[in-house]
């Protein structure tokens, strides 16, 4: 069992961050609303593109290569996540645990070498 009180500073930090960010966002909005003129019309709120209505969606289509990068990132991210429990439990698992992780890393290193060699890590 873990003593949750060690997370207290993080919780306090979260509360303070939340309070400050709320203040920074909403305080100027409220002040300007109370002090300035506020008369919105439909024309004022509509989007503006050189006097024409918008031609197209602002969302452009991404290249599929971003997807490849993201998948490779997920794989190595998971690999890193597996290192944490391995590191803290090494005294319980001993050499068997150490060897296990080295083999696991080797498997993914082969994958990395493959990805590198076929040029999956290159952009152009």
């Amino acid at each position, binding site marked *: 069992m873990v003593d949750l009180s060690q997370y207290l500073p993080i919780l306090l930090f979260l509360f303070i961050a939340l309070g400050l960010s709320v203040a920074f966002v909403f305080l100027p909005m409220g002040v300007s609303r109370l002090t300035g003129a506020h008369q919105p019309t439909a024309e004022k709120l509509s989007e503006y593109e050189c006097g024409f209505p918008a031609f197209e969606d602002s969302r452009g289509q991404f290249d599929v290569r971003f997807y490849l990068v993201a998948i490779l990132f997920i794989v190595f991210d998971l690999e890193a996540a597996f290192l944490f429990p391995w590191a803290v439990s090494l005294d319980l698992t001993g050499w*068997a645990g150490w060897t296990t992780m080295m083999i696991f890393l080797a*498997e993914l290193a*082969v*994958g990395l*070498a*493959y990805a590198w*060699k076929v040029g999956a890590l290159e952009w152009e």
Partner: protein
Amino acid sequence: MDYATSLYLTGAEIGLSISGLVLLLVSAWGGARVTRLVTILAAAALFGAAIFTGHLFTELSVPAAGDAFGGLYRADDFSSFAKILIYLAVIACLMITPKYLAANGIYRSEYPILLLFGAVGMSMMVSAVDLITLYIGLELSSLSSYVLASFARDDVRSSEAGLKYFILGALASGILLYGMSLIYGFAGTTDYAAIRLAFIGGIETGALFGIVFVLAGLAFKIAAVPFHMWTPDVYEGAPTPVTAFFASAPKVAAVAILMRIALEPFADHVDSWRQIVVFAALASIVVGALGAIGQDSLKRLLAYSSINNVGFILIGLATATQLGTSAMMTYLVIYVVMTLGSFTALLMLRAEDGRPFETFSDIAGLATRKPAIAWCLLLLMFSLAGIPPLFGFWAKFVVFRAAVEADLIALAAIGIAASVIGAFYYLKFVKVMFFDEAEGSVVKTSPIGQWIVLILAGIIVSPLGYFLNGLLDAWSSDAAASLFYLV
């Protein structure tokens, strides 16, 4: 834990994984030049794994002696039998593939490597005596199958097949995992033997739901009705050699885990799953037979034929006896031979301009244009229909005999009736090839690898196959006996 024994028992998987890793590096550095070499080495690795498994098969005299890694994995006669079948089927797929992929410009060395890793996953599945091993093996083999289905990535139909297979396969995995988590929740363990102990006094409703979900998830993987709807689309869209693979090796693995999970942890609760299996068996036979009738596409027709065959295999499971299990093993062997043979024949049929033959009108009058292939197809189709002198009849016969001995006479009777309906479209195949007018295009010559697979399949399904009977029966009953060892 005794690592040396564990490593020895899992030798086939470890060897295949290491060869996969090495071949991956070879392919990365060698580029397109080494594709053929990688294919040959992959086949050699599979052959080595098959030999090693055969050695285990003969050596492990006591069926349950081979537990590895603290009961996660079991090397017994059942798993060895299924593994050898899987490895040989994958080798056959490797033999028939290169020319087809090269003709389509997609022959890359990742293809044999993915098949190799798929084979690792499948052999983990058949050896799994723990729900987690089962799941990881299943994911490994499924993941490589998804990629293989859309291997022709510039072909819209292949991409679509891969996408459909992926989405429905992921759904099936989710259902399976949900069922496993229910079983784990009620049993408190994922180990098959311990699950059996936990449920010895009776089964909770929640755990019953778990069994139903697990069976549904596995029914997806073996394409049994009512979870078959992906099969025709995926089989039609995927490149033909990949379809041949889907219809053979993964099906053996999925049927094997279904058998093990039904007959090991839930052997004391046969009544709670038998109805489901009986329903799936009958529905698969009927839907497979009726669905094929209207089809014009040959690949879709063979897809329905595989659904139909899965139904017959499930009849063996419904008996829940050692005889039924042994019959299933025999059926699986003959089914794999017939399926690989028919897809190879399909693969060899190409027009002069390289266009593959896809519909009945393409194969009209084939007997005059390419008599050798036509005669082999005749044997294979008659065998699939279960017409007596051929080996396919023996497969159906052993299954029905087991059903009758287990007092499932109604099931056997309906099965026999439905197989008569099924015979219709197999005969249509033969009629179109032999009695219809030939049309223009001429068939190209085929590579030697495809001829070898086709002729071997033709010889085995022909009445000559009965010479194998003694061996096949002995092996099947050994394999079945190891599932019933604890009873």
